[in-house]
């Protein structure tokens, strides 16, 4: 009861002011038969801080933390070092326990941070405008598809998905499209050293509202975005580029620069931990300012106060659900404010110089890992180009091999069998991600473990 400040004396004094005999008379509108007579069955009584902490620690210890293993998982969630000051800042109560900044005069801290965040994301993506974040990369991807449909005024009903789009992202789009009657054209990924850009381009037609391409793709390869953008634009379709590893954009050209109209992605890599899948950070940007009023989600804008001082407010809210109700551009109400703060703080600590150094270090170690693994008998490197994640083909079922290796504290990567269940043709594929937290010793551990199980 340590979180409840009222005393029994307070309670009876307050009931007197209200003119109520007892607390139950305040629940008079709840029909008698709907009221619970006793405590919730099975739920223990209140517990001390120490007891709860102990219980949670016991559950925590049943998990193998990434830092305690040779760790190579990616596929949309990456293990990067987060500087200590990031967590310090997001735990400041004025950020952690603040509300959505609807009262701008006393929310300038959050608002200025969001304005800075929007600018950082827009620059990273090579776009004009970014929003103030969304739930995660997969939902941002769906929102981009919905936005493309709005831009096409519902006259184009076909959505072309690259087969090498993260399968969970593709599932989210397909799930939502069932209810909005968009037609999805998709194909399973092909295990080729470079993505099948020709095949993708062949599926774009006059009825296509958008083309969705992941960059780098789910197998770590780099599609020729500029060529796909030209092909899409020729048919009057928008190109949506999806990025799940923002660190890559410190080393490779931005999607906006290559012609993508909408760029979305997962921001977890910068400032946000693995968290078993959430909370994460959806990034969303448009290359051209003319599309701003079609965007989903929150936007923070610059303005002035009554004394002419610069200040920030949430703006263009006539797109949003609380004003437009069923005509809103999205039903999204929250954003990932605190995760956006973590991203922005980490990005500020990195700066351009740090981001490029971080990207270089990721790529250097990934090249070392790819070269080393390619020397293991029974392992073949698939990729031509890659950033920090690549695919290897194993002599054997990668899903089982990954499970076996956990017994040696090796988290070897994400098997394509896990990502694409039921697709037998992909079952020997293993997606290996390497970051700055990977040591050369970790790479050696993985290589020797694979040598052992494949022998």
């Amino acid at each position, binding site marked *: 009861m340590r979180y409840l400040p009222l005393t029994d004396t307070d309670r009876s004094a307050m009931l007197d002011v209200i003119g109520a005999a007892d607390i139950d008379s305040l629940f008079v509108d709840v029909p008698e038969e709907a009221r619970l007579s006793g405590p919730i069955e099975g739920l223990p009584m209140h517990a001390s801080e120490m007891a709860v902490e102990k219980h949670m620690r016991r559950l925590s210890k049943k998990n193998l933390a990434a830092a305690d293993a040779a760790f190579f998982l990616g596929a949309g*969630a990456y293990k990067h070092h987060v500087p200590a000051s990031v967590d310090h800042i997001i735990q400041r109560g004025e950020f952690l326990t603040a509300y959505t900044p609807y009262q701008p005069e006393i929310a300038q801290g959050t608002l200025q941070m969001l304005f800075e965040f929007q600018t950082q994301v827009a620059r990273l993506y090579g776009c004009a405008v970014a929003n103030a974040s969304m739930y995660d990369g997969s939902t941002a991807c769906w929102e981009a598809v919905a936005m493309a449909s709005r831009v096409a005024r519902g006259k184009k009903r076909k959505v072309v998905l690259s087969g090498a789009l993260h399968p969970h992202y593709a599932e*989210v789009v397909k799930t939502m499209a069932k209810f909005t009657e968009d037609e999805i054209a998709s194909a399973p990924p092909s295990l080729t050293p470079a993505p099948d850009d020709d095949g993708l381009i062949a599926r774009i037609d006059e009825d296509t509202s958008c083309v969705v391409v992941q960059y780098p793709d789910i197998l770590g390869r780099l599609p020729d975005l500029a060529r796909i953008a030209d092909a899409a634009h020729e048919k009057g379709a928008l190109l949506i580029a999806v990025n799940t590893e923002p660190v890559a954009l410190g080393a490779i050209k931005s999607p906006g620069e290559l012609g993508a109209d909408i760029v979305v992605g997962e921001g977890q890599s910068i400032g946000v931990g693995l968290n078993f899948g959430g909370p994460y950070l959806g990034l969303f940007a448009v290359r051209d300012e003319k599309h701003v009023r079609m965007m989903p989600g929150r936007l923070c804008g610059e303005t002035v106060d009554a004394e002419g001082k610069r200040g920030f407010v949430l703006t263009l809210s006539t797109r949003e659900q609380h004003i437009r109700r069923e005509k809103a551009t999205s039903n999204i109400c929250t954003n990932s404010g605190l995760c956006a703060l973590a991203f922005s703080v980490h990005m500020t600590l990195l700066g351009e110089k740090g981001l490029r150094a971080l990207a270089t270090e990721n790529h250097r170690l990934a090249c070392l890992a790819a070269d080393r693994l390619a020397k293991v008998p029974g392992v073949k490197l698939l990729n031509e180009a890659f950033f920090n994640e690549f695919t290897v083909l194993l002599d054997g079922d990668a899903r089982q091999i990954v499970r076996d290796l956990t017994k040696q504290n090796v988290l070897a990567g994400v098997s394509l069998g896990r990502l694409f269940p039921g697709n037998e043709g992909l079952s020997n594929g293993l997606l290996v991600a390497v970051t700055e937290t990977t040591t050369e010793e970790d790479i050696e551990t993985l290589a020797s473990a694979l040598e052992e199980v494949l022998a």
Partner: protein
Amino acid sequence: MHGPDTATGNRALMLEEPLIFEIGSTDTTGVDFEFAGKLDLAGVEQPTPPTPMSETTSRLGAFSRTDEIGLPGLTEPETVRHYTRLSRQNYAIDLGLFPLGSCTMKHNPRLNEKVARMPGFADVHPLQPVDTVRGALEVVNELAFWLVKLTGMHSVAMSPKAGAHGELCGILCIRAALEARGDARKVILVPESAHGTNPATAAFAGYEIEDIPANSDGRVDLDALKARLGPDVAGVMITNPSTLGLFERDLKAISDAVHEAGGFVYCDGANFNAIVGKVRPGDLGVDAMHINLHKTFSTPHGGGGPGSGPVVLSEALAPFGPLPYTARTEDGVVHLVEEEDAVSFAEEHFGGPLQHFGRMTAFHGQMGMFTRALAYILSHGADGLKQVAEDAVLNANYVLRSLEDVLDAPFGHSGPCMHEALFSDKGFAEGLSTLDLAKGLIDEGYHPMTMYFPLVVHGAMLVEPTETESKAALDQFITALRSVAGRAKAGDESLKTAPHYAPRRRLDETLAARKPVLAWKEEDVPPGQPTMSEQGGR
């Protein structure tokens, strides 16, 4: 302006803070990557000097980035100072009462922050083999178990990322269930007092929206609802307790009528904190309800998120919930049905095929929020959760009855309020609005209440004190609100220019919308403000 100008623009502890683009530079960084030499400590394993890039070949091909991105960097001390200064321009629940009706801002226990950061929860990957994350799955399953228990429902979909995402999940479950029986209904009924997310959600799920009016009491008009039900109505979305702060007395009768007409009942559970441990929505016939974990179980709002919106489902909707999900089998093992094939798992353990409607998000939901919410539930226990609802309702009624003589309470006659008290601007002097009162409250040191919502009340003010406020804190807030309300009725013109003491005076929101500036550009530096190059960093 009060007192003389200062040379810096700063005023004592109130500091003006430039943007990172004005104080940072692209060649400054607050992190070190270069290999700077061994840590020469006895007994510590020595790192191997890295293999230089030149010994490997870049695999970026033609994609290598050459242009400048334009990302300013700051060193660590400058970064910490920048964000600390910004933080001081925010109001927050740690600072004081946050009376936002229907948004529920209550104390955020720090134990919850501590447990969420335990490495077994914070540092695990969503696609690790399940044998390495059994404890994390137990957290999901344990929380799911209590959510089902507390609501009297059948199952719960844990993956929705926020309340509105949960609404979408619930409506999609309804649509999937209807489609499974070959029933293509087109309409969702939504009361006038609903959150804006409700109609937006139903529209996104492909439905037409029709409003249902309220009766003079402020509750859903049962007769109007019954009259509208028919073979084209897929369901209704009802908020209970409602956004007018009232308990929908007729919810069971509404549910019965909707079910009889072949539809489903969606309950917006945003205000579940007022009845947790006292009433189970499942007993009232609800088919789906999202639970905003931050509202009922106090996960921090974070200036706008992250949220988390698990959706509890009735037996009729349970088979249609989205992937992935967790389930405990008879041997006590918790499974993640994603790594384990959903179809064969359902056949083996549920005795029938699964009819899930698909997937709503890449991974398993907001783990970081689950750990916090579970810690909150266990801290309160069965006795504490009931006390939470009782104290929340007591505090709201205390505010309602203490202010009724100075502020119009349009539904004050409708019985006790639940979690929040509703007032209107009736009786304000000509030319003064709810907005002016709200900005006046800022000068009293408070975050204003929810304004202009619900839409059914003119100049609405929705005050929700929550259960974590003491009587002394409520009394001071009541004094402040009485004073500002008195000034609004008396026609105090100074309210029109409030706030006077906040970090910023009233901000021009019209200008922001008319000429949107949504990203920083070098030329936007306001006159008198030094640019990055003039200042040379700080």
